[in-house]
């Protein structure tokens, strides 16, 4: 098992598709906080799946000045269908080509299965990992760890401005 990037590491930049004709780069979020949630695959067969749960907690993340990005190796069309079905209001990034490259750079790729780990990263305003966590693949890690980590960061000013400045790419 590869080592997950931990607190203090510079978060590797990436540019990935969020829709068939739009890309998103981590460096676009400089000056803001990012919650990067790697997960194995779209379409978990439960109603409280991780991404659906986070969808309901978005206002809490934003209250802490953080944007949420979901990321898996699924293709953009798959993400699009999944996001539409679950009415997700945040971006799903497609770590599809070269497959899992971004997950690898975060130490969050499962070579045997060819999917990302269920791994969470809180990235601060300077692009540094403030907290990371790897959950057992079958266990939805919830959001308590993320919110605790966001609360431990020094208070940001203009949280509301951050929230308003967020791009609606979902």
């Amino acid at each position, binding site marked *: 098992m590869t080592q997950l990037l931990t607190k203090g590491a510079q978060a590797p930049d990436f540019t990935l598709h969020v829709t068939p004709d739009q890309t998103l780069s981590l460096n676009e979020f400089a000056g803001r906080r990012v919650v990067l949630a790697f997960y194995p695959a779209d379409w978990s067969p*439960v*109603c*409280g*799946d*991780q991404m*659906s*749960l986070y*969808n*309901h*907690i978005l206002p*809490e993340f934003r209250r802490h000045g953080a944007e949420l990005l979901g990321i898996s190796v699924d293709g953009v069309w798959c993400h699009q269908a999944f996001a539409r079905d*679950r*009415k*997700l*209001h945040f971006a799903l990034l497609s770590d599809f080509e070269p497959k899992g490259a971004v997950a690898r750079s975060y130490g969050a790729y499962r070579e045997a299965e060819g999917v990302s780990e269920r791994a969470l990263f809180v990235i601060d305003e300077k692009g540094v990992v403030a907290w990371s966590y790897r959950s057992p693949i079958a*266990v*939805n*890690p*919830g*959001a*308590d760890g993320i*919110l605790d980590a966001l609360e431990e960061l020094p208070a940001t000013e203009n949280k509301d401005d951050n929230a308003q400045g967020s791009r609606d790419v979902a």
Partner: protein
Amino acid sequence: MTTLRVPVTSHDHIRGSQDAPVTLVEYGDYECPYCGAAQPVIDQIQERFSREVRLVFRHFPLAEVHPHAGPAAETAEFAGANGLFWSMHDALFANQRRLSLPLMIALASSLNLSTVALRDALANGLYAGKVRADFIGGVRSGVNGTPTFFINGARYDDPNGVFGLGEAIDRLLPATTR
């Protein structure tokens, strides 16, 4: 271990003996089929451990996937403000597959609650804050889906799901009370 961050207080909806040694907290969603399926099991547990277990229900509506879950939770709160939380709770789960606003109004009517007051409460979001507070408290306690249970404050994670609850409670009780 994941633990309940929001202690049980008199503001909670509690069913069962106040001095029961075991407190079972359920975070649930009236439109979640897994919560609906858990309902008969919970009823059996309350019957079997009538003196040993008290049940607390808190709302965890996944409103984006369950459009009626929010209003249903607020309807239960409305009934609760009139002393009939558990009657409405049971009625909502019993009618889970056909939840709708007219149904909730009809349930209120069958419990002799004012349907006008319920419509007003839903339209004004009178209980939306309470429901949201339950939800956020759940998130902070590590609720990761529904139903999620806490037994005496510790999150219950069992591969057998709700069917292992009785056994887990049994293990907590001293031999004398069995």
